[in-house]
């Protein structure tokens, strides 16, 4: 069983001109193989930094990050990353974007075409194979980004506010796309979001971070049955989880923004 992520006492600092900023202070979390785990926290608390460290983009300053007991030294296609801003290559067509991974690994072109077509179909993008990303809507772009990562069959999927740039309807649609995909492929997922509803709906477990510099404030196991459908949002248990998480986050945002002004 691959894709077991362990983050232990992670601290990451950036050294600027005259001072050192700790982006993340003391984060410990775990994504077991095939689990769906979310990370929520107020803006600037270090969520992206945690993701970037597991991805292998940013090395830990202190503490350790391992996947299947191996310390992470550099990015690898075993750990796929989906970015908030999609980061599709504008100089490549939809087809070429999705084919990027297998082509980098010199897979033969016939096999590439077959598997790209399969993902285009899965994502409902068949008609757009020859379009450039700039010609697609936000929801379509994010599906291309997802396909570009999934085609490498990673063990771990790291998603940094993947739906943050989408409108509410597209967002709900994409949540179901991801949930269906996860239920059929069972990859380990670490999902960063601001949206509490989204976190509860998707996750097995939710970590809440403290305000900057971030550490883990509290953990919630979401014991809702699977497979989940949209109407689970009206479930009493669902609402209780949302309430608990909401209060935890509210405490942290007050630390950043101060108490509510009184008039």
């Amino acid at each position, binding site marked *: 069983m691959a894709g077991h992520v362990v983050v232990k006492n992670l601290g990451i600092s950036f050294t600027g001109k005259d001072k050192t900023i700790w982006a993340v202070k003391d984060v410990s979390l775990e994504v077991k193989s095939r689990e769906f785990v979310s990370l929520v926290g107020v803006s600037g608390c270090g969520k992206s930094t945690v993701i970037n460290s597991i991805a292998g983009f940013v090395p830990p300053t202190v503490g350790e990050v391992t996947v299947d007991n191996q310390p992470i030294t550099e*990015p690898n296609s075993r750990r796929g*990353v989906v970015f908030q801003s999609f*980061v599709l*290559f504008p100089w490549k067509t939809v087809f070429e974007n999705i084919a990027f991974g297998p082509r980098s690994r010199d897979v033969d072109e016939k096999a590439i075409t077959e598997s790209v077509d399969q993902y285009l179909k899965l994502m409902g993008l068949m008609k757009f194979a020859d379009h450039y990303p*700039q010609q697609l809507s936000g929801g379509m772009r994010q599906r291309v980004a997802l396909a570009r990562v999934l085609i490498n069959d990673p063990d771990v999927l790291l998603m940094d506010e993947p739906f943050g740039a989408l409108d509410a309807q597209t967002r709900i649609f994409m949540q179901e796309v991801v949930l269906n995909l996860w239920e059929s492929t069972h990859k380990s997922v670490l999902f960063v979001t601001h949206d509490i509803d989204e976190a509860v709906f998707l996750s097995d477990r939710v970590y809440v971070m403290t305000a900057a510099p971030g550490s883990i404030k509290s953990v919630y196991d979401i014991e809702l049955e699977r497979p989940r459908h949209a109407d689970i949002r009206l479930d009493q248990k669902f609402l209780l989880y949302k309430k608990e998480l909401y209060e935890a986050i509210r405490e942290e945002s007050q630390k950043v923004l101060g108490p509510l002004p009184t008039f």
Partner: protein
Amino acid sequence: MRQFALRSTGIIFLLILWELVSRTNLIDPGLFPPPSQVISALVSLTLSGQLPKDVFASVLRAVAGFVLGSIAGLFVGAVSGRIRAFDAVLTPVVQVLRPIPVIALVPLAIVWFGLGEASKIFLVFWGVFFPVWVSSYLGISRVDKNYIWAARSIGIRREKLWLQVIVPAALPTIITGLRTSISLAFIVLVAAEMAGSYLGVGYRISAYHLVFQIDKMMGYIVLMGALGFIADRTFAYLVNRALPWYQLSVNQD
């Protein structure tokens, strides 16, 4: 088509105005010949074979200088934009030379390389090198790190990163630099040819000035404008053909 008709009206109006003003004899027609006279001068120069030779010589110089200067600028810019050691050594050298207006080098180039092709090509090379260097340096050194991260995490090998990601990501900036350099190449070329030459559009402009044949001189000035226009359009056309995504990216962000 409508668009084209609309765009032409301004130009046609300008030509008519020019024709009328110079026919009123308010200004000495010797100093300000009407367009009809300029056009007939251009026709006879073309028929005599002199004009095509000048155009050929000038275009060859411009193209040679532009191609060499661009290649050098792209290369030095890319290497110093991405590799620390080269940045440390090369960038200060470029920064010291860059503020010298290239026109100031015209006499020096003639002393060094004579009145032949070499001095013209050198000057165009020099003029083109710096803006291309700047665009290449900035384009390459400021590639959005997300592109590199995304590529690395889908499994690209380090050695493929240059061609697959860094260069294409920098292309929009580089293309802007190249396009600016085309008009610059013509400016430098005219200055170089005026300063001393036997052939070429810039040379004729100054030669007809000395013998006071204003109609022919104006003909060559118009010709110079036409060459610059054609070069710019050809470049834009080639870019859009070769990089169909470029237009989309520029329009959107």
